[in-house]
Protein backbone atom coordinates (compact mmCIF):
# COMPACT_ATOMS: atom_id res chain seq x y z
CA UNK A 1 0.00 0.00 0.00
CA UNK A 2 1.31 3.44 -0.93
CA UNK A 3 1.92 6.09 1.73
CA UNK A 4 -0.85 8.67 1.56
CA UNK A 5 0.81 11.02 4.02
CA UNK A 6 4.32 11.16 5.41
CA UNK A 7 5.31 13.70 8.04
CA UNK A 8 8.86 13.83 9.35
CA UNK A 9 10.48 16.07 11.94
CA UNK A 10 7.59 18.55 11.79
CA UNK A 11 8.03 21.55 14.05
CA UNK A 12 5.98 24.65 14.50
CA UNK A 13 6.84 27.63 16.64
CA UNK A 14 4.20 30.39 16.65
CA UNK A 15 5.00 34.08 16.98
CA UNK A 16 5.59 34.69 20.63
CA UNK A 17 7.61 31.50 20.95
CA UNK A 18 4.90 28.91 21.65
CA UNK A 19 6.15 25.58 20.31
CA UNK A 20 3.05 23.77 19.09
CA UNK A 21 4.86 20.88 17.37
CA UNK A 22 8.18 19.56 18.60
CA UNK A 23 9.28 17.37 15.72
CA UNK A 24 6.55 14.88 14.95
CA UNK A 25 6.80 11.89 12.60
CA UNK A 26 3.72 10.24 11.16
CA UNK A 27 2.88 7.95 8.27
CA UNK A 28 -0.62 7.22 7.02
CA UNK A 29 -1.13 4.47 4.47
CA UNK A 30 -3.47 4.79 1.50
CA UNK A 31 -6.96 3.58 2.39
CA UNK A 32 -6.40 3.91 6.13
CA UNK A 33 -8.90 5.27 8.62
CA UNK A 34 -6.54 7.10 10.93
CA UNK A 35 -7.23 8.89 14.20
CA UNK A 36 -5.13 11.71 15.56
CA UNK A 37 -6.02 12.11 19.20
CA UNK A 38 -4.91 14.56 21.79
CA UNK A 39 -6.20 16.92 24.44
CA UNK A 40 -7.02 20.53 23.62
CA UNK A 41 -3.90 22.43 22.57
CA UNK A 42 -1.92 19.24 21.91
CA UNK A 43 -1.10 20.22 18.30
CA UNK A 44 -3.75 18.33 16.29
CA UNK A 45 -5.14 21.35 14.47
CA UNK A 46 -1.67 22.78 13.91
CA UNK A 47 -0.61 19.49 12.29
CA UNK A 48 -3.65 19.58 10.02
CA UNK A 49 -3.02 23.27 9.32
CA UNK A 50 0.50 22.51 8.13
CA UNK A 51 -0.63 19.58 5.95
CA UNK A 52 -3.25 21.76 4.28
CA UNK A 53 -0.92 24.81 4.09
CA UNK A 54 -3.03 27.00 6.36
CA UNK A 55 -0.17 27.08 8.85
CA UNK A 56 3.45 27.78 7.87
CA UNK A 57 5.73 25.13 9.35
CA UNK A 58 8.97 26.02 11.10
CA UNK A 59 10.85 22.83 10.16
CA UNK A 60 10.28 19.33 8.84
CA UNK A 61 8.82 17.64 5.78
CA UNK A 62 5.30 16.80 4.70
CA UNK A 63 4.49 14.85 1.58
CA UNK A 64 1.10 13.83 0.22
CA UNK A 65 1.14 10.82 -2.10
CA UNK A 66 4.83 11.54 -2.69
CA UNK A 67 4.36 15.25 -3.38
CA UNK A 68 6.44 17.39 -1.03
CA UNK A 69 4.47 20.47 0.06
CA UNK A 70 7.65 22.57 -0.19
CA UNK A 71 8.14 21.84 -3.87
CA UNK A 72 4.86 20.48 -5.25
CA UNK A 73 2.32 22.21 -3.06
CA UNK A 74 -0.45 22.44 -5.66
CA UNK A 75 -0.14 18.75 -6.56
CA UNK A 76 -0.20 17.84 -2.87
CA UNK A 77 -3.25 20.03 -2.25
CA UNK A 78 -5.19 18.42 -5.08
CA UNK A 79 -5.27 15.12 -3.13
CA UNK A 80 -6.57 16.68 0.07
CA UNK A 81 -10.07 17.48 1.24
CA UNK A 82 -10.40 19.37 4.51
CA UNK A 83 -13.29 19.57 6.94
CA UNK A 84 -12.06 22.15 9.45
CA UNK A 85 -13.12 22.47 13.05
CA UNK A 86 -14.56 25.98 12.66
CA UNK A 87 -17.29 26.86 10.20
CA UNK A 88 -15.43 28.64 7.42
CA UNK A 89 -17.85 29.00 4.53
CA UNK A 90 -19.47 32.21 3.33
CA UNK A 91 -22.52 32.54 5.59
CA UNK A 92 -24.36 34.60 2.97
CA UNK A 93 -23.93 32.28 -0.03
CA UNK A 94 -26.45 29.57 -0.92
CA UNK A 95 -25.21 26.03 -0.32
CA UNK A 96 -25.17 25.12 -4.00
CA UNK A 97 -22.95 28.08 -4.86
CA UNK A 98 -20.57 27.32 -2.00
CA UNK A 99 -20.08 23.79 -3.31
CA UNK A 100 -19.85 24.65 -7.01
CA UNK A 101 -17.33 27.44 -6.37
CA UNK A 102 -15.24 25.15 -4.18
CA UNK A 103 -15.12 22.56 -6.95
CA UNK A 104 -14.04 25.31 -9.34
CA UNK A 105 -10.99 26.07 -7.20
CA UNK A 106 -9.88 22.49 -7.89
CA UNK A 107 -10.47 22.81 -11.62
CA UNK A 108 -13.78 20.92 -11.73
CA UNK A 109 -15.99 22.10 -14.60
CA UNK A 110 -19.23 23.78 -13.48
CA UNK A 111 -21.50 21.20 -15.13
CA UNK A 112 -19.72 18.36 -13.29
CA UNK A 113 -19.64 20.41 -10.10
CA UNK A 114 -23.43 20.81 -10.21
CA UNK A 115 -23.86 17.03 -10.55
CA UNK A 116 -21.54 16.36 -7.62
CA UNK A 117 -23.17 19.05 -5.49
CA UNK A 118 -26.54 17.39 -6.04
CA UNK A 119 -25.08 13.97 -5.22
CA UNK A 120 -23.42 15.02 -1.96
CA UNK A 121 -26.21 17.34 -0.81
CA UNK A 122 -28.66 14.47 -1.26
CA UNK A 123 -26.38 11.98 0.47
CA UNK A 124 -25.93 14.34 3.40
CA UNK A 125 -29.61 15.23 3.54
CA UNK A 126 -29.14 18.88 2.60
CA UNK A 127 -30.66 18.97 -0.87
CA UNK A 128 -33.83 20.74 0.35
CA UNK A 129 -31.62 23.51 1.71
CA UNK A 130 -29.58 23.96 -1.47
CA UNK A 131 -30.79 27.51 -2.12
CA UNK A 132 -30.61 28.64 1.52
CA UNK A 133 -27.77 30.80 2.77
CA UNK A 134 -25.22 29.00 4.94
CA UNK A 135 -26.16 31.05 8.00
CA UNK A 136 -29.69 29.59 7.95
CA UNK A 137 -28.44 26.06 8.72
CA UNK A 138 -28.33 24.37 12.11
CA UNK A 139 -24.96 23.38 13.58
CA UNK A 140 -25.26 19.78 12.41
CA UNK A 141 -26.23 20.88 8.90
CA UNK A 142 -23.24 23.22 8.76
CA UNK A 143 -20.94 20.33 9.64
CA UNK A 144 -22.48 18.21 6.89
CA UNK A 145 -22.15 21.09 4.44
CA UNK A 146 -18.43 21.25 5.17
CA UNK A 147 -18.11 17.52 4.53
CA UNK A 148 -19.93 17.90 1.20
CA UNK A 149 -17.68 20.83 0.30
CA UNK A 150 -14.53 18.84 1.09
CA UNK A 151 -15.68 16.04 -1.23
CA UNK A 152 -16.47 18.20 -4.27
CA UNK A 153 -13.13 17.46 -5.95
CA UNK A 154 -13.25 13.81 -4.87
CA UNK A 155 -10.07 13.90 -2.79
CA UNK A 156 -7.99 10.80 -2.09
CA UNK A 157 -7.43 11.95 1.49
CA UNK A 158 -10.19 13.43 3.60
CA UNK A 159 -9.03 15.21 6.75
CA UNK A 160 -11.66 15.93 9.37
CA UNK A 161 -10.84 18.12 12.34
CA UNK A 162 -13.33 17.33 15.12
CA UNK A 163 -16.15 16.71 12.61
CA UNK A 164 -18.78 15.63 15.10
CA UNK A 165 -18.12 18.19 17.84
CA UNK A 166 -21.46 19.47 19.09
CA UNK A 167 -23.44 17.12 16.87
CA UNK A 168 -26.26 15.09 18.42
CA UNK A 169 -25.81 11.34 18.84
CA UNK A 170 -28.17 10.30 16.03
CA UNK A 171 -26.52 12.60 13.52
CA UNK A 172 -23.06 11.60 14.74
CA UNK A 173 -23.83 7.97 14.03
CA UNK A 174 -25.16 8.73 10.55
CA UNK A 175 -21.98 10.72 9.86
CA UNK A 176 -19.90 7.75 11.02
CA UNK A 177 -21.79 5.55 8.60
CA UNK A 178 -21.15 8.01 5.79
CA UNK A 179 -17.44 8.18 6.58
CA UNK A 180 -17.17 4.39 6.78
CA UNK A 181 -18.74 4.13 3.34
CA UNK A 182 -16.29 6.70 1.95
CA UNK A 183 -13.40 4.77 3.45
CA UNK A 184 -14.74 1.54 1.92
CA UNK A 185 -14.66 3.31 -1.45
CA UNK A 186 -10.91 3.85 -0.97
CA UNK A 187 -10.74 7.35 0.49
CA UNK A 188 -8.02 7.66 3.12
CA UNK A 189 -9.53 9.33 6.17
CA UNK A 190 -7.65 11.17 8.87
CA UNK A 191 -9.74 12.19 11.81
CA UNK A 192 -9.04 14.26 14.87
CA UNK A 193 -11.54 13.89 17.61
CA UNK A 194 -11.87 14.01 21.33
CA UNK A 195 -14.79 11.58 21.23
CA UNK A 196 -12.67 8.53 21.90
CA UNK A 197 -15.58 6.24 21.21
CA UNK A 198 -15.57 7.72 17.71
CA UNK A 199 -11.92 6.83 17.17
CA UNK A 200 -12.44 3.33 18.56
CA UNK A 201 -15.50 2.72 16.40
CA UNK A 202 -14.06 4.03 13.14
CA UNK A 203 -10.30 4.01 13.02
CA UNK A 204 -7.83 1.22 12.30
CA UNK A 205 -4.72 3.18 13.25
CA UNK A 206 -4.15 5.86 15.77
CA UNK A 207 -1.61 8.44 16.89
CA UNK A 208 -1.84 10.24 20.19
CA UNK A 209 -0.30 13.66 20.37
CA UNK A 210 0.38 15.56 23.55
CA UNK A 211 2.16 18.90 23.94
CA UNK A 212 3.41 18.75 20.37
CA UNK A 213 4.87 15.26 20.66
CA UNK A 214 3.53 11.93 19.34
CA UNK A 215 3.29 9.79 22.47
CA UNK A 216 1.76 6.74 20.77
CA UNK A 217 1.42 5.63 17.16
CA UNK A 218 0.06 2.18 16.52
CA UNK A 219 -2.97 0.23 15.34
CA UNK A 220 -6.14 0.40 17.41
CA UNK A 221 -6.08 -3.28 18.41
CA UNK A 222 -2.53 -3.09 19.73
CA UNK A 223 -3.32 0.06 21.59
CA UNK A 224 -6.37 -1.39 23.30
CA UNK A 225 -4.37 -4.52 24.09
CA UNK A 226 -2.08 -2.33 26.20
CA UNK A 227 -4.96 -1.58 28.50
CA UNK A 228 -4.16 -3.59 31.63
CA UNK A 229 -7.11 -2.75 33.84
CA UNK A 230 -10.79 -2.22 33.18
CA UNK A 231 -13.12 -0.82 35.77
CA UNK A 232 -16.49 -2.57 35.97
CA UNK A 233 -19.43 -0.93 37.71
CA UNK A 234 -21.82 -3.44 39.29
CA UNK A 235 -25.39 -2.52 40.23
CA UNK A 236 -26.35 -4.69 43.19
CA UNK A 237 -29.67 -5.55 44.72
CA UNK A 238 -29.64 -3.53 47.99
CA UNK A 239 -28.70 -5.73 50.90
CA UNK A 240 -27.68 -5.35 54.55
CA UNK A 241 -24.14 -6.65 54.19
CA UNK A 242 -21.34 -4.80 52.44
CA UNK A 243 -19.76 -6.84 49.63
CA UNK A 244 -16.24 -8.20 50.09
CA UNK A 245 -14.31 -9.13 46.93
CA UNK A 246 -10.96 -10.72 47.73
CA UNK A 247 -8.08 -10.47 45.27
CA UNK A 248 -9.58 -7.44 43.50
CA UNK A 249 -9.24 -3.73 44.01
CA UNK A 250 -12.78 -2.42 44.52
CA UNK A 251 -14.70 0.54 45.89
CA UNK A 252 -18.16 0.50 47.43
CA UNK A 253 -19.87 3.60 46.12
CA UNK A 254 -23.21 3.17 47.94
CA UNK A 255 -25.42 0.33 49.18
CA UNK A 256 -26.17 -0.85 45.65
CA UNK A 257 -23.10 0.17 43.61
CA UNK A 258 -19.57 -1.16 43.61
CA UNK A 259 -16.67 -0.50 41.25
CA UNK A 260 -14.22 -3.33 40.63
CA UNK A 261 -10.85 -3.03 38.85
CA UNK A 262 -10.30 -6.18 36.78
CA UNK A 263 -6.79 -6.84 35.50
CA UNK A 264 -6.19 -8.70 32.26
CA UNK A 265 -4.88 -11.65 34.25
CA UNK A 266 -8.05 -11.86 36.33
CA UNK A 267 -11.48 -13.35 35.56
CA UNK A 268 -14.72 -11.41 36.08
CA UNK A 269 -16.28 -14.79 36.94
CA UNK A 270 -14.38 -14.77 40.23
CA UNK A 271 -16.12 -11.55 41.22
CA UNK A 272 -19.55 -13.06 40.53
CA UNK A 273 -18.70 -16.27 42.41
CA UNK A 274 -17.65 -14.31 45.52
CA UNK A 275 -20.77 -12.12 45.42
CA UNK A 276 -23.04 -15.13 44.90
CA UNK A 277 -21.41 -16.83 47.94
CA UNK A 278 -22.36 -13.72 49.96
CA UNK A 279 -25.96 -13.88 48.63
CA UNK A 280 -25.54 -10.61 46.83
CA UNK A 281 -27.42 -10.33 43.53
CA UNK A 282 -25.88 -8.42 40.60
CA UNK A 283 -28.62 -6.64 38.69
CA UNK A 284 -26.47 -5.22 35.91
CA UNK A 285 -22.90 -4.31 35.00
CA UNK A 286 -21.15 -1.81 32.72
CA UNK A 287 -17.71 -0.42 31.94
CA UNK A 288 -16.99 2.65 34.04
CA UNK A 289 -15.65 4.56 31.04
CA UNK A 290 -14.59 4.10 27.49
CA UNK A 291 -11.60 1.75 27.40
CA UNK A 292 -9.66 3.98 25.08
CA UNK A 293 -10.32 6.93 27.31
CA UNK A 294 -8.62 5.20 30.23
CA UNK A 295 -5.62 4.44 28.11
CA UNK A 296 -5.58 7.95 26.71
CA UNK A 297 -5.57 9.52 30.16
CA UNK A 298 -2.76 7.23 31.24
CA UNK A 299 -0.71 8.23 28.16
CA UNK A 300 -1.16 11.98 28.24
CA UNK A 301 -1.49 12.46 31.97
CA UNK A 302 -3.92 14.38 34.09
CA UNK A 303 -4.10 17.33 31.71
CA UNK A 304 -6.44 15.44 29.42
CA UNK A 305 -9.86 15.83 30.92
CA UNK A 306 -11.87 14.44 28.07
CA UNK A 307 -15.06 13.97 30.00
CA UNK A 308 -15.25 17.69 30.63
CA UNK A 309 -14.56 18.43 26.96
CA UNK A 310 -17.42 16.24 25.88
CA UNK A 311 -19.81 17.75 28.36
CA UNK A 312 -18.95 21.27 27.23
CA UNK A 313 -19.54 20.42 23.60
CA UNK A 314 -22.80 18.71 24.25
CA UNK A 315 -24.05 21.45 26.53
Amino acid at each position, binding site marked *: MQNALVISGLKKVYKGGFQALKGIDLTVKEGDFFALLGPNGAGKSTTIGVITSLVNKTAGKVSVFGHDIDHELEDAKSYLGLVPQ*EFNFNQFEPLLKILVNQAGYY*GVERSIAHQRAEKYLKQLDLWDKRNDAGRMLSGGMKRRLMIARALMHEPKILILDEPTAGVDIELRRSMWEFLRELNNQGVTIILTTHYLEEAEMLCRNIAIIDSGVIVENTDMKSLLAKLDVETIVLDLKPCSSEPVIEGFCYRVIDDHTVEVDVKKSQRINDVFIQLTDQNIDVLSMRNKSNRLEELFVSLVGSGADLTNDQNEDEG
Partner: protein
Amino acid sequence: MSSARNMIALKSILHKEVHRFMRIWVQTLVPPAITISLYFVIFGELIGSRIGQMGGFDYMSFIVPGLIMMSVITNSYSNVASSFFSAKWQRNVEEMLVAPVPNWVIVAGYVGGGMSRGILVGCIVTLISLLFTDIQIHNVWVIIVTVALTSATFALGGLINAIFAGSFDDISIIPTFILTPLTYLGGVFYSITLLPDFWQGVSHANPIVYMVNAFRYGFLGISDVSLTVAFSVLGAFIVTLYVIAMTLITKGIGLRS
Protein backbone atom coordinates in the same frame (compact mmCIF):
# COMPACT_ATOMS: atom_id res chain seq x y z
CA MET B 1 -3.78 20.25 -17.18
CA SER B 2 -2.72 22.76 -14.57
CA SER B 3 -3.34 25.76 -16.85
CA ALA B 4 -6.86 24.46 -17.58
CA ARG B 5 -7.37 23.96 -13.83
CA ASN B 6 -6.12 27.49 -13.17
CA MET B 7 -8.50 28.96 -15.73
CA ILE B 8 -11.48 27.21 -14.12
CA ALA B 9 -10.31 28.41 -10.69
CA LEU B 10 -9.97 31.97 -12.02
CA LYS B 11 -13.46 31.84 -13.55
CA SER B 12 -14.83 30.52 -10.24
CA ILE B 13 -13.34 33.38 -8.23
CA LEU B 14 -14.54 35.92 -10.81
CA HIS B 15 -18.01 34.36 -10.86
CA LYS B 16 -18.16 34.45 -7.07
CA GLU B 17 -17.02 38.05 -6.93
CA VAL B 18 -19.40 39.33 -9.61
CA HIS B 19 -22.26 37.35 -8.07
CA ARG B 20 -21.45 38.90 -4.68
CA PHE B 21 -21.77 42.52 -5.77
CA MET B 22 -24.76 41.79 -8.01
CA ARG B 23 -26.52 40.01 -5.12
CA ILE B 24 -26.17 43.10 -2.92
CA TRP B 25 -26.77 45.59 -5.75
CA VAL B 26 -28.68 47.93 -3.44
CA GLN B 27 -25.45 48.39 -1.46
CA THR B 28 -23.01 48.27 -4.34
CA LEU B 29 -24.60 49.77 -7.46
CA VAL B 30 -27.36 52.12 -6.30
CA PRO B 31 -25.39 54.38 -3.87
CA PRO B 32 -22.77 55.48 -6.43
CA ALA B 33 -25.54 56.19 -8.93
CA ILE B 34 -27.36 58.41 -6.42
CA THR B 35 -24.15 60.14 -5.25
CA ILE B 36 -23.03 60.93 -8.77
CA SER B 37 -26.50 62.15 -9.75
CA LEU B 38 -26.26 64.62 -6.85
CA TYR B 39 -22.84 65.75 -8.08
CA PHE B 40 -24.30 66.34 -11.55
CA VAL B 41 -27.23 68.30 -10.15
CA ILE B 42 -25.25 70.39 -7.65
CA PHE B 43 -21.88 70.91 -9.29
CA GLY B 44 -22.98 70.58 -12.90
CA GLU B 45 -26.42 72.18 -13.10
CA LEU B 46 -26.63 74.56 -10.14
CA ILE B 47 -23.06 75.73 -9.56
CA GLY B 48 -21.55 74.72 -12.89
CA SER B 49 -23.87 76.97 -14.88
CA ARG B 50 -22.37 79.97 -13.04
CA ILE B 51 -18.76 78.83 -13.50
CA GLY B 52 -18.81 78.99 -17.26
CA GLN B 53 -16.12 77.20 -19.23
CA MET B 54 -13.23 75.05 -17.99
CA GLY B 55 -10.48 73.98 -20.39
CA GLY B 56 -12.54 75.21 -23.31
CA PHE B 57 -15.64 73.14 -22.41
CA ASP B 58 -18.75 73.89 -20.38
CA TYR B 59 -18.25 72.89 -16.75
CA MET B 60 -20.65 69.93 -16.86
CA SER B 61 -18.80 68.37 -19.81
CA PHE B 62 -15.50 69.01 -18.04
CA ILE B 63 -16.41 67.21 -14.81
CA VAL B 64 -18.19 64.20 -16.36
CA PRO B 65 -14.98 62.18 -17.10
CA GLY B 66 -13.62 62.99 -13.63
CA LEU B 67 -16.82 61.91 -11.91
CA ILE B 68 -16.94 58.67 -13.89
CA MET B 69 -13.32 58.01 -12.93
CA MET B 70 -14.04 58.84 -9.30
CA SER B 71 -16.77 56.18 -9.28
CA VAL B 72 -14.49 53.65 -10.92
CA ILE B 73 -11.74 54.30 -8.39
CA THR B 74 -13.87 54.10 -5.25
CA ASN B 75 -15.86 51.07 -6.39
CA SER B 76 -12.88 49.04 -7.63
CA TYR B 77 -11.13 49.69 -4.36
CA SER B 78 -13.99 49.11 -1.96
CA ASN B 79 -15.21 45.98 -3.74
CA VAL B 80 -11.96 44.10 -3.25
CA ALA B 81 -11.27 45.58 0.18
CA SER B 82 -14.65 44.56 1.58
CA SER B 83 -14.95 41.24 -0.25
CA PHE B 84 -11.47 39.97 0.59
CA PHE B 85 -11.62 41.20 4.18
CA SER B 86 -15.03 39.60 4.59
CA ALA B 87 -13.57 36.32 3.25
CA LYS B 88 -10.77 36.65 5.79
CA TRP B 89 -13.16 37.51 8.60
CA GLN B 90 -15.52 34.61 7.84
CA ARG B 91 -12.46 32.48 7.12
CA ASN B 92 -13.87 31.33 3.79
CA VAL B 93 -10.65 32.61 2.22
CA GLU B 94 -9.36 29.23 3.46
CA GLU B 95 -11.47 27.58 0.75
CA MET B 96 -8.99 29.01 -1.76
CA LEU B 97 -5.90 28.64 0.39
CA VAL B 98 -6.35 24.87 0.82
CA ALA B 99 -7.12 24.38 -2.88
CA PRO B 100 -4.45 24.11 -5.59
CA VAL B 101 -5.07 27.71 -6.66
CA PRO B 102 -1.84 29.59 -7.44
CA ASN B 103 -1.52 32.93 -5.68
CA TRP B 104 -1.57 34.83 -8.96
CA VAL B 105 -4.98 33.34 -9.71
CA ILE B 106 -6.31 34.55 -6.34
CA VAL B 107 -4.95 38.05 -7.02
CA ALA B 108 -6.26 38.06 -10.60
CA GLY B 109 -9.67 36.79 -9.52
CA TYR B 110 -10.20 39.44 -6.85
CA VAL B 111 -8.74 42.22 -9.00
CA GLY B 112 -10.98 41.09 -11.88
CA GLY B 113 -13.98 41.25 -9.55
CA GLY B 114 -13.03 44.77 -8.42
CA MET B 115 -12.50 45.89 -12.03
CA SER B 116 -15.89 44.43 -13.01
CA ARG B 117 -17.70 46.44 -10.36
CA GLY B 118 -15.68 49.59 -11.04
CA ILE B 119 -16.35 49.42 -14.76
CA LEU B 120 -20.02 48.52 -14.31
CA VAL B 121 -20.54 51.47 -11.96
CA GLY B 122 -18.59 53.63 -14.45
CA CYS B 123 -21.04 52.58 -17.18
CA ILE B 124 -24.03 53.34 -14.93
CA VAL B 125 -22.61 56.79 -14.11
CA THR B 126 -21.94 57.42 -17.80
CA LEU B 127 -25.58 56.61 -18.62
CA ILE B 128 -26.77 58.93 -15.84
CA SER B 129 -24.53 61.72 -17.15
CA LEU B 130 -26.34 61.46 -20.49
CA LEU B 131 -29.41 62.82 -18.71
CA PHE B 132 -27.51 66.02 -17.97
CA THR B 133 -25.19 66.58 -20.92
CA ASP B 134 -24.03 65.21 -24.25
CA ILE B 135 -20.87 63.14 -24.11
CA GLN B 136 -18.29 63.43 -26.83
CA ILE B 137 -15.62 60.82 -27.39
CA HIS B 138 -12.20 61.90 -28.60
CA ASN B 139 -10.36 58.55 -28.42
CA VAL B 140 -12.24 55.45 -27.26
CA TRP B 141 -9.06 53.39 -26.84
CA VAL B 142 -7.59 55.88 -24.39
CA ILE B 143 -10.84 55.67 -22.43
CA ILE B 144 -10.83 51.86 -22.37
CA VAL B 145 -7.15 51.51 -21.49
CA THR B 146 -7.30 54.21 -18.81
CA VAL B 147 -10.37 52.80 -17.11
CA ALA B 148 -8.96 49.27 -17.21
CA LEU B 149 -5.58 50.27 -15.77
CA THR B 150 -7.09 52.58 -13.15
CA SER B 151 -9.60 50.01 -11.93
CA ALA B 152 -6.83 47.38 -11.78
CA THR B 153 -4.61 49.75 -9.78
CA PHE B 154 -7.25 50.48 -7.17
CA ALA B 155 -8.48 46.91 -7.01
CA LEU B 156 -4.91 45.90 -6.15
CA GLY B 157 -4.81 48.68 -3.57
CA GLY B 158 -8.05 47.40 -2.03
CA LEU B 159 -6.63 43.87 -1.91
CA ILE B 160 -3.50 45.00 -0.06
CA ASN B 161 -5.66 47.03 2.34
CA ALA B 162 -7.79 43.94 3.04
CA ILE B 163 -4.75 41.71 3.57
CA PHE B 164 -3.44 44.06 6.27
CA ALA B 165 -6.83 44.91 7.77
CA GLY B 166 -7.63 43.47 11.16
CA SER B 167 -11.12 44.94 11.47
CA PHE B 168 -13.84 46.45 9.31
CA ASP B 169 -12.68 49.90 10.47
CA ASP B 170 -9.32 49.25 8.84
CA ILE B 171 -10.89 48.93 5.40
CA SER B 172 -12.61 52.31 5.68
CA ILE B 173 -9.61 54.28 6.96
CA ILE B 174 -7.69 54.35 3.65
CA PRO B 175 -10.71 55.32 1.48
CA THR B 176 -11.78 58.00 3.97
CA PHE B 177 -8.48 59.59 4.83
CA ILE B 178 -6.38 58.99 1.71
CA LEU B 179 -8.45 57.99 -1.31
CA THR B 180 -11.20 60.60 -1.02
CA PRO B 181 -8.87 63.58 -0.47
CA LEU B 182 -6.61 62.45 -3.32
CA THR B 183 -9.62 62.07 -5.61
CA TYR B 184 -11.05 65.49 -4.76
CA LEU B 185 -7.60 67.04 -5.24
CA GLY B 186 -6.98 64.97 -8.38
CA GLY B 187 -8.46 67.40 -10.89
CA VAL B 188 -11.96 65.94 -10.99
CA PHE B 189 -13.61 69.35 -10.53
CA TYR B 190 -10.91 71.67 -11.86
CA SER B 191 -7.93 71.89 -14.14
CA ILE B 192 -4.72 71.84 -12.13
CA THR B 193 -3.44 74.61 -14.40
CA LEU B 194 -5.65 76.95 -12.36
CA LEU B 195 -3.50 76.30 -9.30
CA PRO B 196 -0.43 78.34 -8.31
CA ASP B 197 2.87 76.78 -9.49
CA PHE B 198 3.69 75.30 -6.10
CA TRP B 199 0.35 73.48 -5.81
CA GLN B 200 0.58 72.38 -9.43
CA GLY B 201 3.88 70.73 -8.52
CA VAL B 202 2.30 69.11 -5.49
CA SER B 203 -0.61 67.89 -7.61
CA HIS B 204 1.82 66.05 -9.87
CA ALA B 205 2.64 63.80 -6.93
CA ASN B 206 -1.02 62.74 -6.84
CA PRO B 207 -1.44 59.64 -9.04
CA ILE B 208 -5.15 60.30 -9.49
CA VAL B 209 -4.31 63.48 -11.44
CA TYR B 210 -2.79 61.29 -14.18
CA MET B 211 -5.73 58.91 -14.27
CA VAL B 212 -8.39 61.61 -14.38
CA ASN B 213 -6.53 63.60 -17.04
CA ALA B 214 -5.84 60.59 -19.25
CA PHE B 215 -9.50 59.65 -19.00
CA ARG B 216 -10.60 63.22 -19.74
CA TYR B 217 -8.32 63.22 -22.78
CA GLY B 218 -10.20 60.19 -24.08
CA PHE B 219 -13.47 62.12 -23.94
CA LEU B 220 -12.53 65.75 -24.58
CA GLY B 221 -9.04 65.59 -26.05
CA ILE B 222 -7.60 67.83 -23.30
CA SER B 223 -5.23 66.92 -20.48
CA ASP B 224 -3.08 68.72 -17.91
CA VAL B 225 -0.44 65.95 -18.16
CA SER B 226 1.14 64.01 -21.00
CA LEU B 227 -0.51 60.68 -21.85
CA THR B 228 2.85 58.92 -21.92
CA VAL B 229 3.60 60.02 -18.38
CA ALA B 230 0.05 59.12 -17.28
CA PHE B 231 0.26 55.57 -18.65
CA SER B 232 3.78 55.16 -17.28
CA VAL B 233 2.57 56.16 -13.81
CA LEU B 234 -0.36 53.74 -14.08
CA GLY B 235 1.90 50.93 -15.28
CA ALA B 236 4.40 51.56 -12.48
CA PHE B 237 1.63 51.51 -9.87
CA ILE B 238 0.15 48.27 -11.19
CA VAL B 239 3.50 46.48 -11.24
CA THR B 240 4.45 47.73 -7.77
CA LEU B 241 1.09 46.93 -6.18
CA TYR B 242 0.94 43.50 -7.87
CA VAL B 243 4.40 42.59 -6.54
CA ILE B 244 3.39 43.73 -3.05
CA ALA B 245 0.09 41.80 -3.15
CA MET B 246 1.77 38.62 -4.42
CA THR B 247 4.50 38.86 -1.78
CA LEU B 248 1.97 39.31 1.01
CA ILE B 249 -0.20 36.38 -0.11
CA THR B 250 2.79 34.12 -0.74
CA LYS B 251 4.13 34.84 2.73
CA GLY B 252 0.63 34.40 4.10
CA ILE B 253 0.62 37.76 5.88
CA GLY B 254 -2.72 38.05 7.65
CA LEU B 255 -3.82 34.75 6.10
CA ARG B 256 -1.67 31.94 7.50
CA SER B 257 -0.40 31.38 11.03
